């Protein structure tokens, strides 16, 4: 029983960085922009948040710094993709490479330095319920924030006027522009939001999950987050389910190692990446499902005329 509790709780924790990063990207893509640089923004968020804790700043400030640094990194992408109207694939790739380099550069002195990790926030009363308490109500604050953000983003996109405008811009920037919406400005805001969320996701890895700084510590989570957005078919709740699926995969792989499963650890570590491919294939085969919520202007540059 305690193993089951550990697996469920571990899954939710392992899914948290993916929830933040993928949710941010979902909003970016809903506005019609494809930012492939999540991996780079996560690494930048991770290293700056780690630096902040290392320097003795309080935890909330460290996470805020992670968010701001992720947003700052996304601004480079924004300027290229939105103002200079470059190929978004190339601009995102450049950001992924750049973020890897910058984070390795800044974190070069941090190797294997332990820092205090983000403290747990047990929900009063609820956390005392047997079984359910330790399974669902004894997490650090960011786990709850991640779940809150899923609801908040869903509400924003589908229940507010601003969300409707954002989705319109993702479908047809020409129409949105024609009725006077500032397309480029709103896309900038979406990109910055995506950057901040990726930054928090990265910060979660370096100050809560591990808590350590290791070069390239995201190990492809930024790219898995991109795959999750496709998996979710651009819907926040499905995104959460997908993140849990991948979190579960990570935990089972770790548990498999702990149980001395007679498979080399490297090959077990490959499971989440292979699972990502399998899931992508399953979703992508169904073109109708995929196109249902697909932002029609995704990755197409827009230049307001007139």
């Amino acid at each position: 029983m305690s193993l089951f509790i550990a697996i469920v709780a571990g899954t939710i924790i392992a899914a948290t960085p993916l929830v933040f990063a993928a949710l941010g990207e979902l909003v970016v893509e809903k506005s019609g922009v494809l930012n492939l640089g999540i991996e780079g923004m996560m690494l930048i968020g991770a290293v700056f948040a780690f630096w902040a804790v290392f320097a003795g700043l309080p935890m909330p400030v460290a996470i805020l710094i992670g968010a701001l640094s992720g947003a700052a990194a996304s601004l480079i992408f924004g300027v290229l993709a939105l103002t200079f109207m470059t190929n978004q694939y190339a601009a995102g790739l450049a950001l992924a490479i750049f973020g890897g380099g910058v984070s390795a550069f800044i974190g070069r002195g941090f190797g294997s330095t332990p820092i205090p990790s983000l403290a747990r926030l047990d929900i009063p009363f609820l956390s005392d319920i047997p079984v359910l308490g330790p399974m669902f109500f004894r997490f650090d604050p960011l786990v709850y924030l991640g779940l809150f953000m899923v609801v908040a983003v869903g509400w924003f996109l589908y229940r507010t006027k601003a969300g409707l405008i954002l989705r319109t811009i993702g479908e047809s920037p020409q129409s949105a522009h024609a009725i006077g919406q500032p397309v480029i400005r709103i896309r900038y805001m979406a990109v910055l939001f995506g950057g901040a969320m990726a930054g928090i996701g990265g910060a979660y890895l370096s100050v809560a999950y591990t808590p350590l700084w290791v070069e390239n510590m995201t190990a492809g989570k930024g790219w898995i987050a991109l795959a999750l957005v496709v998996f979710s078919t651009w819907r926040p709740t499905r995104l959460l389910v997908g993140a849990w699926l991948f979190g579960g995969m990570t935990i089972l792989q770790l548990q498999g190692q702990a149980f001395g499963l007679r498979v080399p650890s490297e090959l077990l570590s490959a499971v989440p990446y292979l699972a990502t491919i399998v899931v992508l294939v399953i979703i992508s085969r169904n073109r109708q499902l995929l196109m249902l919520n697909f932002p029609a202007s995704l990755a197409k540059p827009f230049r307001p005329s007139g």
Partner: protein
Amino acid sequence: MRFTIEQRPEPSVTMRLAAPVIATALTLFVGSILFLALGHDPLRAFHAFFIQPISTMNGLSELLLKASPLILIACGLAIGFRANVWNIGAEGQLIMGAIAASGIGLFWPNPDSVLLLPLMFLAGMLAGMAWAGIPAFLRARMNTNEILVTLMLTYVAALVLSWLVHGPWRDPMGFNFPQTALLPPAAMFEPFDYAYRLTPAIFITVVAVIAMWLFTDRSFMGYKLTVGGAAPRAARYAGFRESSAIWVGLLAGGGAAGIAGMAEAAGPLGQLSSTISPGYGFAAIIVAFIGRLNAFGIVLGGLLLSLLILGGETVQITLGMPSAITRILQGILLFFLLAADFFIFYRLRRLKEAV
């Protein structure tokens, strides 16, 4: 004084050629500021980064040695990029090529066979193509995004490599280093001169550049691919099949990367190790863009990126600067190139003040 952005009546040919030069110059400028920020004399660091590495014969040999896989892979990738096929997993395809080639080199029954090198070449190429064939199949038949699949498979390839060199293939006499035994001499390219590391493997790259040029500029297939990338609807109307573009685009990149992996194992390294590539597969993407997806541009781009890698190694050794600088400069170079490309299609014009 105010400026406005306006579309050029037609794309500027001058800017098309000037953009990579401008981007390189700006990258060097930012690099110098970075050196200054690190407390180094920028001129001295600049010299150590960009001049010192190529001021000796050995340095030039190393420049070509590193440019060779970059150019080779970029030629293959560019064929895909022209067709809007985004293979960004060349690093994984390189690793699989190196694994397959080393496997032949290590375990072929007759280690003195003259067939060894050709077999390794074939194995490397086929392994790279097979690894790129998975995303090709999934995109052509299952509509799956090739960016994500090629990238995921790169992580898988790196893990397979790590498993092999830490486990079953580890050299028992290798003091537990994550590497295989040395390949037999018949499985290795013989250097031109034993004082330097450059080997005839560079001729593979020369052939690849010519083949790439013939394919893109002189063949109907290459033309069809380019049309498919630039104007997908026109291509469909003309009856050019998208799926063949996907297959050709991905297999070209995979084959090239696999051969590059084989040439690394059989060339400068002489064995399979966990550090088979210093990120050639990713840097080659930048090479392809800097070279404007054109064979001869790619040669220049490959030399430039090779110099960035070489310079990064030099300043690490001579000035103790962090090696991550190379990746930062790679990213910045691509940023500047993309921004400079804007001015191929647009220009700034001064607005006349309204009176």
